[in-house]
């Protein structure tokens, strides 16, 4: 099937559309929610702040949460794109490769230790008693370890896409069993926290988390831009890449490490939100065609839109309780993905 908007004008239209939708979602995310803070509070906040409760809810809770949502969306989208291009694997995504699982295990271990060391009886929540800045590094260690293990297991002179995906799924399942066991060891009362965290949730995430992964977002964007050229060349065989002067041995691991860092830092604040890294690259290819820079630009924005919209929806659909963002991204992402798959006659190239 031909991409929907392949030419230059079409690309501009696609970007404009995503940006508009993102604007709508940001607006909806600021004025909608369980607490009584809406349009008038936001206008007041922007024009003449009174310091009212409603204004503070918007400024302290809803706005930073939207920021974290968008950051995380960009992280997962770019990570998925890089994985799929470098591994030439349409199934690659942080979850499928076991990287989210590895990062989760590392974070939960740190969580358990952190809690046991500092506040034995207090309720657990991600990084609550760990310095938040530290958590992305812990997640990165877990993600790199898991990713390295999966690639090592699948490496056979080359990386067979199916074998890589299946090794990753296997490792991911081991990881989630490990997380379950650890959470159970914390006690049955933690079941809810575990379920929410394993689904991927933005509940209570704010400026602290946004700032903690901001350097990662910045560095990730810069690095992604820097590796665009070799990344584009890698869509061909290793031989062709070498013939145009690429040191495949050097930059392929580098690109993978960048993707792992993006995914792991995102996992460290929201947990393993699934499907964004898988669905965004396919959508991007379908909409803007084969140009990698365009895929990156569109994909990053679309990822931000997907996660932010899902979180807003999860917050307002069952007030006063929340549906975790990861559950919503899956519930939205899966049907979209399957429709795309059907339209393309089951082919993924």
């Amino acid at each position, binding site marked *: 099937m031909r991409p929907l908007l392949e030419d230059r004008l079409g690309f501009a239209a696609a970007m404009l559309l995503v940006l508009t939708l993102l604007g709508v979602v940001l607006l909806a995310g600021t004025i909608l929610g369980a607490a009584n803070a809406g349009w008038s509070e936001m206008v007041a906040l922007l024009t003449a702040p009174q310091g009212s409760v409603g204004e503070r809810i918007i400024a302290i809770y809803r706005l930073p949460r939207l920021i974290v949502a968008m950051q995380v969306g960009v992280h997962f989208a770019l990570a998925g794109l890089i994985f799929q291009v470098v591994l030439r694997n349409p*199934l690659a995504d942080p979850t*499928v490769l076991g990287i989210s699982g590895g990062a989760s295990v590392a974070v939960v271990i740190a969580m358990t230790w952190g809690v046991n060391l500092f506040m034995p009886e207090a309720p657990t929540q991600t990084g609550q008693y760990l310095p938040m800045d530290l958590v992305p590094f812990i997640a990165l260690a877990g993600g790199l370890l898991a990713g390295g*293990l999966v690639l090592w*297991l*699948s*490496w*056979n002179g080359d990386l067979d896409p*199916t*074998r890589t*995906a*299946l*090794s990753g*799924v*296997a*490792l991911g*399942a*081991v990881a*989630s*069993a*490990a997380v*379950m*066991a650890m959470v*159970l*060891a914390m006690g*049955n009362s933690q*079941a*809810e926290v575990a*379920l*929410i965290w*394993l*689904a991927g949730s933005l509940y209570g995430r704010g400026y602290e988390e946004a700032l903690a992964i901001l350097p990662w977002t910045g560095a990730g964007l810069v690095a992604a831009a820097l590796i665009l050229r070799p990344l584009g060349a890698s869509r061909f065989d290793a031989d062709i890449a070498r013939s145009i002067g690429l040191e495949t041995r050097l930059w392929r691991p580098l690109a993978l490490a960048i993707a792992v860092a993006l995914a792991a830092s995102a996992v460290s604040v929201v947990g393993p939100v*699934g*499907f964004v890294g898988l669905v965004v690259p396919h959508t991007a290819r379908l909409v803007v065609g084969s140009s990698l820079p365009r895929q990156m630009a569109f994909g990053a924005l679309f990822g931000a839109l997907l996660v932010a919209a899902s979180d807003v929806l999860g917050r307002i659909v*069952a007030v006063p*309780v*929340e*549906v*975790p963002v*990861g*559950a*919503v*991204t*899956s*519930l939205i992402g*899966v*049907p979209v*993905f*399957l429709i795309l*798959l*059907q339209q393309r*006659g*089951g082919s*993924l190239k």
Partner: protein
Amino acid sequence: MMFPYPRSTLVAALSATLLTAAMIHTLGQGSFDTTPWRALELLVADDGSQTAFVVRDLRLPRALVAALVGAALAMAGLIVQTVMRNPLGDPGLMGVTAGAAFAVATVFIYIAGNTLILMPAGVVGGVIAAAITLLLARQSGFAPLQLTLAGMAVSIFFVAATSAVILINRTALQTLYFWLIGGFINRTWTEFIFLWPWVLAGLASGVALARRLDLLQFDDDVSRALGAKAAQWRVGFLGLAVILTAASVAAAGPIGFIGFAVPHLTRWLIGAEAAAGGHGLLMPMVALNGATLTLGTDALVRSGIFDKQLPAGVLTSFMGGLLLLVFLRRMRRA
């Protein structure tokens, strides 16, 4: 002849011995400690004591459910691996487990918490999810990659739907939690009576049709040339795997990786030569080893080496997953 290979015979004998030993051991062990011999006596003759009740109505059904679930999942795994020509296939990859979990959670929250209603609901949910997966992969002629992809997507969808339903109705969580993780804690005769007809019928048809499965491991062209209606048989076998899995999940919750690991473990134990001999040998062997491994795991959990509340499902996932990584590594070298 059933066991033309001496090594296979040895493995079968060993597995059967282990299964019996685990069964007897698990009957005598627990907070009402008795000797295995005494437990066997109580099985034959109910003396009306509390210990007799514990052995006959708590430990025995739990052990039987574990063995049935293990056999069913292992055979389902073998079928899926052969039909999808995917060495890492697992019934869970078709969305069966996630669909069953969603159905059980939804019915529990919105309709009724009765086990006799929940279990059929789980079967229906698992079958529906697998049907969606098959429908989505139909276009590609059930090609392995498309099947895996569709199944994964369907799984993710139902897992998400389950956590959404539960988190909107949080009071249900404590009750549903242990079911969702999977294990044999508190499984009684109710579960066994529900489970055995499905599993026995499934296992019997699996063994009876094993020769057909041999034809499906080749490409469609080859199978067609050999006279098999490849597509029909493929769907038929997947249907069998789905029924076996859905019934198991409905009774015990998701028990991870048994379907994944046992076929590989069995091939490795009996050797490549015997494994290539066909499914006539593999099917019963895999079912037996599945029962042994699952019951053994539950016995291990009950023995108190780990936290006693640790569900068997967590342990099987952990062990099976690790085993699988070892196999992947071996496959790489081969």
